[in-house]
Structures are given as C-alpha cells and as structure tokens.
C-alpha cells in the first residue's frame, strides 16, 4: 500500500479544487454540485464546505447521486443501492459532478445517464480528486483534477481514513 495523498495533501487538494470551482462559478445560483456515491460524496462534502466558506453570500446547492441501478456490469452482482438525493431542479443549470477517482470512465457515463433522468442541464462538468488518466475506456475527461497518478490497471486507488492510497495487486 502506497500513500498518494497524505491527510494535509488531501486537505490542500480539496481546497485548491474548491478555489478553482469558485473562480469558475462566481454566481452559485446557476450551478449545482453533485457527489457520486460513495467516494465522490465524501470528497464532495469537503469541497462544498470549502466553496461555501469562499462564497458566504450564496448557498451552495449540493446533492448526492447513486449509479447502482445504472451500472453496465449489473449482471455480475446485484448491489444494494445507496441514497439518492437531488433536492433541486437541474434543468438549464450547470451541474458539477464530483467523484473521488476517475478510472475507466464507466461510473461517470452511468452518472450522466442518471442525471439526464432528472432533467436537461445546460452543461455538465466533472471534478475529480484523482485521475488515473491512462486507463480510460470511454471518451471522458475531467475539467478539474486534484492529482494525476500513473497506475497499473489492476491497482486500486481508494480514499481511506482521510488519505488517498494505492493498493497494488
């Protein structure tokens, strides 16, 4: 097991992502933030908190999205769904999807499918903490990236106890 981001580095990354997002979206009325269950929600909670500290005048709109029913590998194993909570209209808004690790792109593809069942957003952006760039299986790229790491395909990258670690297989 190798540490990719220590706790202070994770804090630093999260806050730098929050800063970038805040600069890109000075008016929080037109943008909503959506964390993808489960890792993306953990990261999203911190990012949204940090954005709220930067822009105290407006309330951040934040929801959680679960892709369980939309997985393309559903037949391998039936998984128990997580909570889905999109308590606002996404119609004509900019939606910022937040995930912990961008790997094959399949999760994001499923998340886009979920999102479109809630309405037609004006624009969707993607923010990830860790980008495993060389393993993409779909044409999906992030707009905001914490760190990019080189990994082997069988490695696992996980957020455990406020650290991001790489588990080699």
């Amino acid at each position, binding site marked *: 097991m190798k540490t990719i981001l220590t706790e202070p580095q994770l804090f630093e990354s999260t806050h730098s992502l929050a800063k970038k997002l805040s600069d890109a979206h000075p008016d929080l009325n037109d943008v909503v933030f959506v964390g993808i269950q489960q890792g993306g929600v953990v990261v999203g909670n911190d990012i949204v908190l940090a954005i709220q500290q930067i822009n105290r005048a407006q309330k951040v709109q934040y929801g959680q999205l*679960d892709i369980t029913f939309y997985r393309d590998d559903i037949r391998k194993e*039936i998984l128990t*769904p997580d909570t889905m909570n999109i308590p606002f209209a996404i119609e004509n808004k900019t939606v910022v999807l937040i995930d912990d690790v961008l790997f094959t792109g399949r999760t994001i593809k499923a998340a886009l499918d979920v999102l479109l069942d809630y309405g037609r957003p004006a624009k969707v952006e993607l923010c990830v903490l860790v980008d495993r760039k060389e393993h993409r299986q779909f044409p999906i790229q992030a707009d905001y990236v914490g760190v990019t790491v080189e990994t082997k395909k069988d490695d696992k990258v996980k957020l455990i106890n406020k650290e991001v670690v790489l588990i080699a297989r």
Partner: protein
Amino acid sequence: MQLSTRHLLGIKNLTKEDISLILSTAEQFKEVLQRPVKKVPSLRDVTIVNLFYENSTRTRFSFELAEKRLSADTINFAASSSSASKGETLLDTVNNILSMKVDMVVMRHSASGAPHFLAQHIPAAIINAGDGINEHPTQGLLDAFSIKEKTGTLEGRKVAIIGDIMHSRVAQSNIYLLKKMGAEVTVCGPPTLIPKYISGALGVNVNYNLKETLEWCDVANVLRIQLERQNQVLFSSLREYSLAYGINRNLLDSLHKEIVIMHPGPINRGVEIDSDVADSKQSIILQQVENGVAVRMAVLYLLSGRKD
C-alpha cells in the same frame, strides 16, 4: 448484500435480513418514482412473464408497471384467454413460455402451492403474486413498507388484521412478516372466519370484539370479504357482517386515539369499510397502491441477478 433465496414464494421462508433488504431497496425505488423520468435501465436484459391464472387488477398492473420501470421486457398471460382453457397443464404452459427465453415468472394461481411446485421444476426465478389461500408476499411487503413509512418503525408496532382471516393470503403474509420484524399482531373477525390454529401456530392474539381490537392497535389492516372463496355460509348476511365488523366513522371517532387504516383492495364499500373511512386522512389505502410498485421493483431487482 443478497437475498437468501432465488424465488419469492412466501414471507414464511424469508429471513429478517431479507425483509429489511427488500424494504430499504424499495425506499430507493420510491425515489426513482418521484423523478421526471420514472425509469431505470437495471433489468433491460431481463424478460419477465406475468402468469395470471386468477383475476387481478391492482397486482397485475403493479407488477407490470414495476417491470416496465425497470426496463424489463414483459409478456402477459391470462388463463382465461390462453391454451390453459384447452387443457394444457401448468408445467407444460410454463415450459413452453420459458423456451422463448424468459428469465423470471410472476405468478398468481388459485391453487395454494402452485408457485412452489413450479420452483421445483423450472430454472427461472419465480415470484408469487398470490397462491390460493396461502400467501401474497409482495402485498405483505408493501403493507409493511407502508406501515414503516407512515409510523416510522415495525418493531413493537401494534397491528390489527380485521375480517376474513381464514381465506386471506394477505393476512397470512402480513402475519409472517410482522412477527419476524417484531410487531404485535391481533386478528379480529367472526369466529367462523378465524382458523382455530392461528394463535398457536402463528403467534398472534385473537379478539372477536372489534371495538376492543381497534382501541388496542396503532394500525388496522381491514381485509376484503372474499365472496368468491366462500362455498359455505360463514356469516348470515353482509348487512350483519357490516354491523358487527364494518369500520365506520362513528366507531373511529369513539376511540381514544387516531389509528392508521389500511386495506389491500378491492374495497367492498359499505361492507368491511365505509366510504368516509376509506377516503379519510387516516386511511393510507392509496399510498399502499403507490408503494406496491416500488416494493415490487425492489423484489424483481434483487432476484434478477441470479441466473443460476
């Protein structure tokens, strides 16, 4: 987590964990049903046959809608308009349907145990949508879901089941489920409609007095008088039944608390329940129907993965 079974034949052979898993999954499907697009792609590679050897409106529509909301392909079979009326056996009919690559069978039959028989002979997953006077598991699950949604918990909840207990598969499934989840159950009705074995075998209280029962309970699940299942006269007239066991507004107003009223439908208005009770704020009859779709989606979803 996975269910401990690959069929849903009855509540009797489910574990407490199975029931909790179905109910919590149903909560997520209920959220799906509030969206602008009330559909998920989970079962788009699954084909389901709805095999109804007995009439049904609510249950058949509810299953069909649940299947469509999960993106499954569905075919419908009604015994009255099929080759079953030409004398084809159940097993032959089902094997013929399965040879057309069907993965799951939702089945209602007037013979108790018909889905259990089928489960021993065919590879598809079977969901019992009501068999004779045995069980109606998805009704038990949706009733439990509705009680939990309305009152917060099943544990320790006092539930009265009122009416024709003898002929009711709904009562049986409800009793198994509520007991497993830690609720208290009292059955109430005329002695001729309550089987003698019930308190010992199923661990429920029996009370022949309606007023006392209502005073005791938090939730009253009022059953339909099943005229089609009574070959013998078990009470003298519908009017007499209604006087002794019908739920009316005056009776509810005379209680010291407000209880929740449920009914699995179809309602015989003015017999087991009066209109001003069925349509009142205390009644969650239509929520039960709404929840039925979410609960059936959960059952189909959880059973769909196991093509073994």
